[in-house]
């Protein structure tokens, strides 16, 4: 079909809009990745976590996390008998170097890895005054370091304590679910480093992802469900004492 000049002039802007629409789903850094195919979450299995701290170290190395600040960390709980409202919790250096020996008297002890819950209805993005923290179409909550004012409202609004103020960038910062890795088909640094499979990246939109079967057959919780944040960080066997 040979187009005359007039037809080309009419078609070009339409084509530009269409091309923009096509491109819109692919952040250009990852050509084979389509955002609308994914909805990211994470599964943490408390029964498998050994508190080795590999995840904390791996995250720090992968993401240049400044010392003293944590995109992920591990808490150790000691729950004495029936006192589930008063657990004893510690997290020496976020669990980065493992944990010293703990109490042995009557009670139960376990590790709880924590990180950004990648909430669907995140209070952090709700309060950001400029749209510097936001949801990607594939369900990851990110911070735009070139746009953030550093007002720290998001850090106040996060119920899970997973955000911090980056001392060099002077912006808010937090776990990015290793967005630069998952958009290339890799798993997150913390999941890669975890020796026991306690942490598993989950693609909730993928019908073949093992999380769907897991959710059907295990007792799974999220943190602070009463705040209705839409957390996508699912815990297997999370004890009632966990804050």
């Amino acid at each position, binding site marked *: 079909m040979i187009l005359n000049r007039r037809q080309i002039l009419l078609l070009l802007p339409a084509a530009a809009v269409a091309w923009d629409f096509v491109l819109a789903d692919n952040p250009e850094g990852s050509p084979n990745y389509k955002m609308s195919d994914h909805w990211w979450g994470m599964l943490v299995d408390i029964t498998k976590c050994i508190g080795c701290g590999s995840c904390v170290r791996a995250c720090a190395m992968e993401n240049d996390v400044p010392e003293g*600040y*944590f995109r992920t*960390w591990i*808490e150790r709980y000691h729950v004495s008998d029936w006192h589930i*409202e008063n*657990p*004893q*919790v*510690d*997290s020496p*250096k*976020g669990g980065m170097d493992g944990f010293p020996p703990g109490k042995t008297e009557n009670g139960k002890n376990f590790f709880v890895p*924590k990180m950004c819950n990648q909430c669907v209805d995140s*209070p952090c993005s*709700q*309060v*950001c*005054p*400029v*749209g*510097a923290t936001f949801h990607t179409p594939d369900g990851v909550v990110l911070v735009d370091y070139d*746009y*953030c*004012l*550093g*007002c*720290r*409202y998001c*850090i*106040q*609004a*996060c*119920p*899970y*304590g*997973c*955000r*911090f*103020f980056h001392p060099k*960038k*002077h*912006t808010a910062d937090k776990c990015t679910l290793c967005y630069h890795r998952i958009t290339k088909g890799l798993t997150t640094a913390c999941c890669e480093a975890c020796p026991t499979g306690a942490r598993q990246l989950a693609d909730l939109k993928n019908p073949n992802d093992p999380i769907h079967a897991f959710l059907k057959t295990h007792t799974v919780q999220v943190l602070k469900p009463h*705040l209705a944040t839409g957390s996508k960080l699912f815990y297997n066997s999370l004890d009632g004492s966990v*804050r």
Partner: protein
Amino acid sequence: MEGFMYPNEVELQWSILIVLYPFLTGLVAGAFILASLERVFRVEEVKPTYRLALLTALAFLIVAPLPLQLHLGHPERSLEMYLTPHRSSAMAMFGFVYLWYLMVVLVVEIWLDYRRDIVRLAESSRGVKGLFYRILALGSYNVSPAALRIDDRVGWIITLIGIPSAFLLHGYVGFIFGSVKANPWWSTPLMPVVFLFSAMVSGIALVLLVYMLTCAMRHVAIDMRCLDTIAKYLFYTFVIDFALEMLDLIHRIYEADESFRSLDFMVHTRLFYSQILIQIFLGTLAPLALLSLTQLITFSVAARRRIYAISAALTLVGIFAMRWNVVIGGQLFSKSFLGYTSYKVEFITREGLLSAVALMILPFAILYVLIKILPPWQEKHPVVAEAQGDD
């Protein structure tokens, strides 16, 4: 650090500057409400403070964004709040409330009220000063009775709109805290209301003190009828404010939800001086007692002046302490309810004590300049002589 805190919580995010900010905006709202008492509710007695209250509000509103700018990680990006405001964010929407209040309410109202004086000064001054006033007059010199009547009418409407705007201005600041569900010390529907009433209390106290101070500096007698009325409104507003804070407290103690034990411990330890001693005893109960005495017993003029001044000063300290207890207190406990941290105010840094003190003094300097440019007083006084003398 005591107990357990999430690792990222140990360091406080909002410093003394963020305590200062609601304090300053509160003074603005309170001063304006006092001014509106005369204009809208026709409380004639407080007319001597009308213009002074407006200028005070303006001086403090100009300074109000400065603590925020000093606090931001990237203050050079702060315009983004106006360019791409995120509509769900109270902070973003507040930027527009602030702008509305500054430009439409305060500046226009002051302009309308002062127009006759501006035109007079434009016509009688020479050189740079004359140019300044001519610009301020927007090149329009009509001060005929008809024009002035229209000014008065429009000014009345602006003041009327200004009252809910002032409520919005400081209520919004309360909402910025009150809407954070992650923080049980902040999250309550009462927060905007408590902030608003404490703002009114602090603003009225401020104008009372500024009025007394300017009278002393001008060697002019204080209009006691005016002062008594201001003190009366201070008392009434304070009673409401106190009732609201008591309601919040009693409600918390009674319901004793999961955060209560942690918050209770925090108040009795970390916040003992700032909340129990300074905010409650020194800053609320003492001025309330003093002011209620003046309502029940007749004191001499000199005694009343002293009582009012002491009460107003204590009130201001108390309201500042209240802001401190809300902002800093809300960050001293862990959201796990298992631990506490502490806040060390630095001295020289960008967000330190020195900056805070400077920012508290600055509005008074600006007020001084505003009084020189737009004298609130009608009668002849040294300022007029100076204006003619030092061109």
